[in-house]
C-alpha cells in the first residue's frame, strides 16, 4: 500500500483538506446580508422610512434601487440581486386612508438559503410597516400604550432552535457532510485494496502470505487502514469541536467511540459488498454510488420523513446514517446515551456482518473469478 502514493493521499490529505474546506467555507455560519434590490415607486416619507428599515435588517442588504419592475426582474435574471422589495406608487396615500395597499417581495428561489433569509427580512419589514401605521392611528385615537401593542400583536411567539440558536449552517451542514465524505473514502479504499488483489492477479499470493486464513488476511490488510482513518477521523472531530467550536453537548468519548465505530463499520460494509459481489468493477460501482447518494438519501438536508416512503429506508442501509443520528442526539442535543443505544449497536453489527460472508471471499481469492 505504501508503494502507491495515491492511497496515502486519499487517506490523509484528501479527508483533511476537504474537512478544512467545508469548515472554512461556511465559517461565517449564518447566511445574512443577502444582496437585494428595491423598487420604490411611491417616493414618500413613508416609503423612504420603509427602505431604511429594510436596510437595517440583518438578513438583507439593499445594493441597488431600480426605477421599475422590469429593471428589477432583469437584475435578478442577471444575478445582480437575489430578490427585490416592491413599493407601489400609491402606497402612502392608500395606507393613510385605510385602503390597504399591498407591498410585494419578489424572491429568487433558485438559491435556497438566500431565499429563506430574504423571506424573513422582507416579511418582518412588511409586518412592522403595518404595525407602525396601526400604532400611529390607535395612539391618535387615545388608546393607552400597552394596550396598543397588545392590540397590534395579541399573540407573541418565542422560538428556541435547540442547541443551535445562531442557526449556523456550518454546525448543521458540515457536521453531517464531512463524516459522510470520510465514510465514502473508507468504503472506496477498502473496496479498492481488496479489488486490486483480484485485478492484479495477486489474490492467491495474498492468501498464501496469510497462511490461508481469510480472517488473518483481511485483518492484516485492513487494520493499518483502520488506524490511519481513525486518526484522521479523530483529527477532524478535533477540528470541528475544538478549533471551529461546533456544539459538543455530550461526553467527548461518546463521539470518539462513534467515529471509531463509523470507520470500522464502513470497512465492514465495503468488505461485505466485496465478498458478496466478487467482481471488482461491480462492487466498486456499488460502493461509490451508495457512498455518493448517501449525502442525499440519509436525510441531511431534506428530512427523511419528507422523502418518498421507499427512499427513506435506504438511508438506514448506510453506516453513516447511524453516525449522523448519534451526532444529532449526542453532540448537538446532548440527550441521554440511552436514546442512542440502538445506533451504536447498528454500527457494531456492520463490523460483524462481513464475518458471515468471508468464506465466499476466501473462495474467490483462491479461485479468482474472471470477468473478460
Amino acid at each position, binding site marked *: 500500500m505504501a*508503494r*502507491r502514493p*495515491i492511497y496515502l493521499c486519499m487517506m490523509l490529505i484528501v479527508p483533511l483538506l476537504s474537512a478544512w*474546506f467545508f469548515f472554512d467555507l461556511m465559517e*461565517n455560519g449564518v*447566511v445574512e446580508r*443577502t444582496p437585494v434590490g428595491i423598487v420604490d415607486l411611491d417616493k414618500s416619507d413613508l416609503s423612504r422610512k420603509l427602505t431604511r428599515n429594510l436596510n437595517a435588517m440583518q438578513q438583507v442588504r439593499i445594493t441597488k434601487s431600480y426605477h421599475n419592475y422590469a429593471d428589477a426582474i*432583469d437584475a435578478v*435574471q442577471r*444575478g445582480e440581486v437575489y430578490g427585490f422589495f416592491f413599493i407601489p406608487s400609491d402606497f402612502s396615500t392608500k395606507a393613510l386612508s385605510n385602503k390597504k*395597499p*399591498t407591498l*410585494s*417581495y*419578489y*424572491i*429568487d*428561489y*433558485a*438559491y*435556497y*438559503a438566500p431565499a429563506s433569509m430574504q423571506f424573513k427580512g422582507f*416579511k418582518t419589514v412588511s*409586518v412592522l410597516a*403595518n404595525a407602525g*401605521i396601526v400604532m400611529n392611528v390607535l395612539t391618535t*385615537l387615545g*388608546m393607552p400604550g400597552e394596550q396598543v401593542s*397588545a392590540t*397590534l*400583536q395579541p*399573540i*407573541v*411567539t*418565542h*422560538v428556541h432552535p*435547540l442547541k443551535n440558536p445562531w*442557526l449556523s449552517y456550518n454546525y*448543521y451542514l458540515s457536521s453531517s*457532510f464531512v463524516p459522510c465524505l470520510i465514510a465514502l473514502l473508507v468504503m*472506496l479504499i477498502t473496496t479498492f485494496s481488496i*479489488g486490486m488483489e483480484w*485485478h*492484479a*492477479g*495477486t489474490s492467491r*499470493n495474498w492468501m498464501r502470505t496469510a497462511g490461508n486464513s481469510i480472517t488473518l488476511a483481511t485483518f492484516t490488510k485492513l487494520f493499518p487502514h483502520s488506524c490511519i482513518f481513525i486518526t484522521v477521523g479523530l483529527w477532524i472531530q478535533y477540528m470541528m469541536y475544538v478549533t471551529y467550536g461546533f456544539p459538543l453537548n455530550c461526553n467527548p468519548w461518546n463521539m470518539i467511540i462513534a467515529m471509531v465505530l463509523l470507520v470500522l463499520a464502513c470497512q465492514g460494509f465495503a468488505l461485505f459488498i466485496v465478498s458478496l459481489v466478487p467482481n*471488482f*468493477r461491480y462492487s*466498486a*460501482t456499488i460502493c*461509490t454510488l451508495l457512498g455518493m447518494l448517501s449525502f442525499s438519501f440519509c436525510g441531511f438536508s*431534506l*428530512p427523511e*420523513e419528507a422523502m*418518498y416512503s421507499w427512499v427513506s429506508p435506504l438511508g438506514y442501509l448506510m453506516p453513516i446514517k447511524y453516525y449522523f443520528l448519534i451526532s*444529532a442526539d449526542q453532540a448537538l*442535543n446532548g*440527550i441521554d446515551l440511552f*436514546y442512542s443505544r440502538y445506533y451504536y449497536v447498528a454500527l457494531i453489527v456492520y463490523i460483524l456482518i462481513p464475518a458471515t460472508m468471508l468464506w465466499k471471499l476466501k473462495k474467490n481469492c483462491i479461485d479468482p473469478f474472471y470477468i473478460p
Partner: protein
Amino acid sequence: MPEYKSKYGWIGTVARVFSREFKLVLRDEAVIIFFIVLPAVYPPLYSLIYNTEVARDEPVVVVDESRSTLSREFIRQLDATPDVWVKDYAADMNQARDMMARKQCYGIYYFPADFENKVYEGSQGHVTLYCDMSVMMRYKAMLTALTNVQMHMGSEIQGDKSAHVIDLGGGFVESKQVPLGNTSMGIASAVLPFILVFVIQQSLLLGIAMLHAGGMGRRRRNKGHDHLQIKATPGALLIGKTLCYLVIYIIPSIFTLYIIPLIFHFPINGNFMEIMYMLIPFLISSAMFGLVMRVFVNNREGVFLVIAFTSLIFVFLAGVSWPEYLTPFYWKALAQVIPGYWASSAYVRMQVDGASLSQVSNMYWALWILAALWFVIAYLTEVMVLRRKYKAMQLECDIDPTALQKRTLYQQGDDDMLNPELLDDDEEEE
C-alpha cells in the same frame, strides 16, 4: 517515430484524431459507462430522492397548559397548515422532551396556562416553539407554520378588539410574497439544476481521465508506445479529441439538462437553443480542463477516487448550499477556473429564472475565456509533461525492455511474481 501527416493538411490530422478517439471511446466499456450511462442514471436517482421538494407535515407534539378554546383553536390551525402535523399532546414538557428524544416528534409547541386569559385581558399571550436543529428544513417548516397561524389568529383577535375604535380587520398594509423562477420553492428545483451541470462536467472528466489511463496502460505494456494513438501535433491532437467529446455529449447534455427537468417537473423557463449555445463553450472548456487534469492520473483506479470527492467540492464552490457572496475570496478564485461554476450559474439563471443568453453574457464569455486558458495549459502539459514522460518511458525500455512492467508489479506489492498476461489494465473501471 515520425508524426502523422495527412494529405489534407492540419484539418485532415484533426479529422483523423477525431475518428480514432471515437473508436477508442467505443471500444472502452468503462468510458461508455461514464460518457453515456452515468449521465443517464445518476440524475434520475438524485431527482427521485429530492423530488418531494418540501418538508410537509413534520410531526410535532403540543404541551397545552392553557386548555382553553383559544389554545385549541391555535392547535387546530397549526395542524391544518401543510407544514406540521400535530401528532400528539404531551402532559408536560418532560414527557414532550422524552418523545422528542425518541424521535417521535421533532418539535414542541408550548402554551402556558395564562395563554387565553392574557389575550382577552388585553395583554399578550405567549406561544413557545422548541425545535430539533439536526435538519434545517424541519426548523423552517415548524417556524413557517407558527408564524402563519400567529398572524392569522392575531388579525382575527385584533379585528374583534379594535372594532369599537376603528375597523382594523387585518391591518392597514398587506404584503405578499412572489417566488421567482423556482415557483414550487422546493429543494429539488433549487439544488438539482446545479448538480445536473456538474454531472456533465464530472462524467466528462472521468471519461477523459479513463481514456488517458488506458493509453498509459498500453504504453506500459508496449515499451512506452501507444500504438492506438495518432501521432499528431499537440494542437491537432487536443482539438481533435475535444471535437469528438463535443459530438458524443450532444445527446447526454440534452437528456440531462432538458429531459430530466421535463420528467421531474423542475422549472423550464429557458430558451432551448440558447442553452445549447451556452453548452458549446462549457463542453469545450470542460474537455480542455479534463485534458489537463489527466496528467495526474496514471492508473485507471486512481481516476475514480479523485473524481468522487472533487464533485462534492465543486458543487459547493458553485454556491448551491452556501451563497457565493459569503464565500471567502480564495475559494471564489478557485471556483472561477472551474467551467461548471460559470455554466451552472448560467444554466440556473436561464432555465430557472428565465434569463436570456444576453443577460448571462458575462458567464458565457467567461466560459470561452476558460476554454482558451485550459487549451493553452493543456497544450503546455501535452508538450512539456506528457510527451517527455512518454519519451522517458521509451528510453527506459531501450535499456531494459521489462522496466515498466517491473515497476507496475513493484507498486502492486508483488515482488516474486511476474505474470504479464494478467496485467491487462483495460479490465477495469469505476
